[in-house]
């Protein structure tokens, strides 16, 4: 059973389009995250939700809007896609939002904007 699942795995789209990436975790964790991995493999946090409440919102363009309908799901919607949005987006979850709570990652969604 996949603990943290993301869909789709690959997403190819044109500039200006709007797209969504979905994430679900079946671990019963309270906290979920979105990380972006750029072409140099550098991972940077974008958002975090704890029990459906936004607790981290890094400096991310407001074209990116996360939504957490319940604590098992955290979706990412991106409006007006730009070339620079091309990256691998990882969803993750952790039991709590405490510092010592290790993250469990999904397999990533590779987004290519043409």
């Amino acid at each position, binding site marked *: 059973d996949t603990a943290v699942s993301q869909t789709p795995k690959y997403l190819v789209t044109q500039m200006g389009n709007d797209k969504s990436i979905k994430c679900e975790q079946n671990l019963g964790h309270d906290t979920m995250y979105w990380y972006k991995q750029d072409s140099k493999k*550098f*991972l*940077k946090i974008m958002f*975090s939700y704890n029990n459906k409440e936004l607790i981290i919102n890094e400096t991310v363009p407001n074209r990116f809007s996360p939504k957490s309908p319940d604590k098992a799901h955290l979706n990412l919607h991106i409006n007006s896609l730009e070339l620079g949005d091309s990256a691998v987006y990882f969803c993750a979850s952790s039991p709590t939002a405490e*510092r*010592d709570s290790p993250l*469990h990652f999904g397999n990533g969604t590779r987004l290519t904007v043409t």
Partner: protein
Amino acid sequence: AQSVSQHNHHVILSEAASLELGCNYSYGGTVNLFWYVQYPGQHLQLLLKYFSGDPLVKGIKGFEAEFIKSKFSFNLRKPSVQWSDTAEYFCAVSISSNTGKLIFGQGTTLQVKP
């Protein structure tokens, strides 16, 4: 700003060679430290973590890491690598007590030749 540096970007070793990957962080307060591994085509997995106590921590698959507070370092080691250790290795630090936010290094690509 807090940051994590991994000095080796690409390491090539032969099987049975010893491994040490460097990781340094910049933050003067309490930290939790992690090493994650990403095998080809797979998601990031936790290799080991340091929270407190014995600065020498052991993880899965024979890996260990040593926290040296005076050097702000958390280097990863393995006495004898195998071909199956070929992967990306990421060092990460958590400094926030209530958000679970991880700051990642830029990763090290390890290639083990059979």
